[in-house]
């Protein structure tokens, strides 16, 4: 049931992307999202698309896994595509039947929008989620945000909460699966009936899950206190992050991509007006 959820999942590896400094990755990922929105002309889109494919290839994560990660946004994709195809006031009419009008502009718009969402999802998940361990990710985030601590924002606490939340996603899924199996073994039926029966069928899963999460939180808090955890003040790190040549190369590459997109936008017409 939960085997296909890959959101927030880390794939251990040793690729160029895996070795990048998480701080650089975070900054570049944000920048990359901006780039995706900047691409306006067809060649610029092609460039971003190729670059993303290249990123996947470099990361060493199989294309099938990446495609599977799109499953949760599948409905969103279909919805945007349909809306863009049918509700568009383009001029080049391709097909007309009663109130349904399909225009060339509409189709182009639908494709670009869908592509944009896919690129957003894939690039952020490949660059960040799949190739960065949750610990490295929150470490990077904490350090990037550390200036905010000066204005009394508890950056460390938030980072710690995020680390824990990310850390326990797989555990939570595993536990849910275990409880589901246990109730299935007692004949619980999660698949048939209408929506109300189905929702009710989840009670035997949710109650034990809730109880075990409270127990786990309590145990974790005690374990942390036993090791004298009392927030971020004075804590040192086992691994100190350093920028390397690799990080500057990748920053350079993304900048080059940025320049490329601007140039292509300048010389070719935009797809969406």
């Amino acid at each position, binding site marked *: 049931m939960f085997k296909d959820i890959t959101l927030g999942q880390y794939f251990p590896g040793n690729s160029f992307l895996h070795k990048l400094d998480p701080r650089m990755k975070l900054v570049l990922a944000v920048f990359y999202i901006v780039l995706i929105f900047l691409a306006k002309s067809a060649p610029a889109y092609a460039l971003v698309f190729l670059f993303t494919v290249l990123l996947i290839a470099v990361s060493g994560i199989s294309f099938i896994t990446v495609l599977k990660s799109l499953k949760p946004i599948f409905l969103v994709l279909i919805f945007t595509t349909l809306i863009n195809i049918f509700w568009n006031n383009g001029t080049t009419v391709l097909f007309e039947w009663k109130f349904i009008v399909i225009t060339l502009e509409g189709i182009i718009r639908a494709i670009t929008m869908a592509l944009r969402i896919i690129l957003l999802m894939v690039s952020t998940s490949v660059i960040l989620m799949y190739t960065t361990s949750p610990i490295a990710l929150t470490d990077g985030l904490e350090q990037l945000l550390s200036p905010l601590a000066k204005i009394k924002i508890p950056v460390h606490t938030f980072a710690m909460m995020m680390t824990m939340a990310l850390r326990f996603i797989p555990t939570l899924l595993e536990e849910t699966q275990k409880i589901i199996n246990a109730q299935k073994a*007692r004949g619980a039926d999660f698949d048939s009936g209408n929506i109300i029966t189905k929702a009710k069928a989840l009670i035997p899963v949710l109650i034990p899950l809730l109880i075990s999460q409270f127990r786990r939180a309590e145990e974790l808090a005690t374990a942390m206190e036993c090791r004298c955890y009392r927030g971020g003040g004075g804590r040192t790190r086992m691994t100190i992050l350093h920028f390397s040549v690799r990080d500057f190369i990748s920053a350079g590459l993304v900048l080059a991509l940025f320049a490329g997109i601007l140039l292509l936008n300048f010389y070719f017409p935009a797809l969406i007006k």
Partner: protein
Amino acid sequence: MNAAELRGVSYVYSEHTPFCKVAVNHIDISFEEKCVTGIIGHTGSGKSTVSQLLNGLLKPSEGVVEIDGKNIWAEPKKIRNVRFSVGLVFQYPEYQLFEETCYKDIAFGPKNMGLDEKEIDERVREAAALVGLSEELFEKSPFDLSGGQKRRVAIAGVMAMRPKILILDEPAAGLDPRGRDEILSKIVEYREKTDSTVIMISHSMEDMAVYCDKILVMSDSKPYMYGAPAEVFSRATDLEAVGLSVPQVTKMMLALKDKGFAIRTDVYTVDAAKAEIERLLQTI
């Protein structure tokens, strides 16, 4: 006659992903009817996978699972019926309790079977008696009970379905010595009273020696040894080769033999060891 049989069964977790892992690899095992069979093996040797394959929670990647001579996946839509006849008690089953009262929790399985009130009531009382749970606890919340009692409620919840085969994954894990003995002897009693088959996964050689008629040793996703306890424990060196060992009393007997005493080493329960040592003392 075999109660359950696995023929050429393989199971692979997360197939086609980087996390792909073979849990059981082309195994053929048959579990004898009306026997208490113990499955023992290292973490990751495939014990738990075997138990979930038997009651249809996992569908084998390859091979056939037969219960009473019938392929359980012949009609995938009726797999729920298989789960009623092959009861599976998971490790730490008390974490699956959810109802307001113990009675309702034990009744969850029979209710899912679609039985009528009277039949459910009868089964709940029977199952509670089988695990030694007093009826005073019926109206209590399962969350107010002690660990050992919670475990009993959870096991009763599966027994109430009157499965022909009862599989238990580490039924005694995390209990104190007295709790262990009580639970395990209740399980063996269940087998006698209901004429069913019991399959029990455990890490404890001592428990296996006392309660099982047959022992299946798993190693590296495959059966490694299969036979009566005496047979299995007579091969101490083979067991050690896969990181397991014989019960502690057997170890002691082997050590005594090493010291030159004329003592039997096919002893694997404390009681038998006591008798053997007494016999030896009389001859001296």
